[in-house]
């Protein structure tokens, strides 16, 4: 009991302490690793050479000599020297600094796998979760649980897709979308009328949006749209693209549906004998205000992710139109199809909510 009161009073202090403890623990967790880990104790720049490529880009090719001290395995305490070559632009290579921990591999000689990044990951994750606990109060448990569950199902669905190649990806990720929608709305709303409205209208609008996108693409042929340029694609790309959009737009569509249905249920609580049209019109009014901002959320996420490739292509002497075609077009296409689904959520939710709310009325009367 006293602990609970203390917790309430010094919540932020507890949370800050937890963040620090976890981050420090992750920083010193190298003894759990089987991979050899070493700390960089000294860095000496051996050479630096200005380079100029075919397109006139000036860069620097730098070689540094790293002195490493092993932190784990039976070599613990031993020192080795290793050299690291990087370009100043660090597109793929990396400049190392004193104090960084790195993962190593040993074949014939030692080579760098990469920097140990778990501590910064733990810090940022702990910070985000703490902010949820701090600001979402009573809802924080549901929010964290639904995020965690959804992430686990995401990984499970991918595992399923990889292991059962005969099942269409759209089917796998379509089912995943249904699971996502169910978990998320159930966690926040429980077994209520609003849950039913949000779940159904989200699924309907997401499916309708992607179907319209797919239909348009099929009717016109995918001329000019290079699905094969999707990053890290390892299978037939088009179904994966639709799966991406299905998952991507789900949250925004759910956001829209929750807002509309919350408003309409509020109206019902205020005065329950209303006509279908009254609900429908109010739903449309609430919904249309947030279409723009929700689309914008997805647009920013999708477009930001394309930027590194855009810069790389532009710097490689490609024209704007070619760069957009290869690096940006799919991001824009996802945005447009998502936007269609988000807009469709407005009439679909208004219609569905109005139908359910008035039908319940008639049954009672």
């Amino acid at each position, binding site marked *: 009991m006293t602990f609970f009161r203390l917790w309430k009073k010094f919540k932020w202090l507890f949370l800050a302490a937890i963040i620090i403890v976890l981050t420090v623990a992750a920083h010193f967790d190298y003894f759990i*690793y089987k*991979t050899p880990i070493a700390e960089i104790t000294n860095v000496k720049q051996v050479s630096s050479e200005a380079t100029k*490529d075919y397109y006139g*880009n000036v860069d620097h090719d730098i070689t540094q000599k790293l002195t490493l001290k092993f932190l784990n395995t039976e070599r613990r305490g031993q020192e080795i020297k290793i050299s690291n070559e990087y370009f*100043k*632009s*660090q*597109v*793929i290579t990396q400049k190392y600094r004193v104090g960084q921990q790195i993962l190593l591999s040993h074949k014939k000689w030692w080579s760098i796998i990469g920097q140990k*990044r*778990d501590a910064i*990951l733990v*810090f*940022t994750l702990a910070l*985000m979760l703490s902010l*949820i606990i701090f*600001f*979402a109060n009573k*809802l924080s448990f549901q*929010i964290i649980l*639904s995020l965690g569950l*959804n*992430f686990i199902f*995401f*990984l499970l669905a991918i*595992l399923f897709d*990889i292991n059962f190649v005969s099942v269409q990806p759209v089917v796998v*990720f379509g089912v995943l979308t249904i699971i*996502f929608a169910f978990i998320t709305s159930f966690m926040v709303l429980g077994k209520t009328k609003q849950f039913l409205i949000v779940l159904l209208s989200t699924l309907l609008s997401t499916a309708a949006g992607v179907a319209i996108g797919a239909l*348009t693409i099929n009717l016109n042929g995918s001329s000019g749209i290079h699905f094969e340029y*999707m990053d*890290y*694609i*390892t*299978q037939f790309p088009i179904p*994966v693209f639709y*799966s*991406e959009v299905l998952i991507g737009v*789900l*949250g*925004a569509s759910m*956001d829209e549906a929750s807002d509309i249905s919350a408003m309409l249920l509020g109206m019902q609580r205020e005065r329950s004998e209303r006509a279908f049209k009254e609900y429908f019109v109010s739903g*449309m009014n609430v919904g*249309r205000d*947030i*279409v*723009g*901002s929700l689309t914008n*959320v*997805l647009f*920013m*996420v999708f477009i*930001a992710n394309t*930027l*590194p490739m855009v*810069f790389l292509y532009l*710097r*490689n002497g490609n024209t704007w139109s070619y760069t957009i075609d290869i690096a940006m077009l799919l991001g824009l296409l996802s945005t*447009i199809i998502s936007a269609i689904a988000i*807009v469709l959520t407005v009439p679909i939710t208004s219609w569905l909510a109005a139908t359910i709310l008035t039908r319940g009325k008639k049954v009672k009367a």
Partner: protein
Amino acid sequence: MSTFLWLIFILFSLLILVARKQGLKAFFGLFINLCAIFLLIVLINWQFNVYLVTILISFGILAVSIYLSADNQKVTNYAFTSSLIVLAIVIILIIPINYIANVQGFATESSEELEGLLLSVGLNFSNIAFIVTVIASLGAIAEASMAISADLNELIESTPEITTASLYKQGIIIGSQIIGTALNTLFFGVLGDNLTLAMFYMRLNYTFAQLINDKLVVAAILDLLIAMIGVLLTIPVTILIVSRGHIKNGSLNKKNSN
């Protein structure tokens, strides 16, 4: 290209049909934001100062996203001020995280994507990573601050005698409801966007230890987490801005002295 134009046409018609004037504004807003992104690319490509350019462009994107999404001057002003403060905090957070994490650019796993490209491009990709993280969080910050300030303003208008203390308390309740859905919008957006990356990595059979230290995986997760932090920070910041505005308007002081 014709498929693309068709889809834009369908979107445009639906927006007009469903959302009328708001739809037109939403379409227009997206277009301006796209132009802002192009401007950002051009300026960074010309090697202008990264921080200055990113802040200015972000400023513009937030302004467009917020002022075009509602008509209520008071609500949009609150939301814009709050989103700028949140943006500042997020940037202050991103700089050290970016410095420590070193998740810029690409990795050896991207070799297929990079085929035929020269990588000594003379553009600092550490800065590009900074830009990506900031831009990815902008839409979510704008959306959350709009939603919270609109609801808080409604609360003040329906109960003008509300005290700052109870405004804060109500604000946290309202905020926590909004935040759940706002976080999900972001979460699923990023998940969908990284589906191919996740599939690619699951096929590689990396160990857990490799995954949580991997450049591309950590980069994707950090971007999501930072954007989520931005959304969460909009709750206290927006409440603070709205209640300060409320006090300034005198309604609070008058009622309290009564």
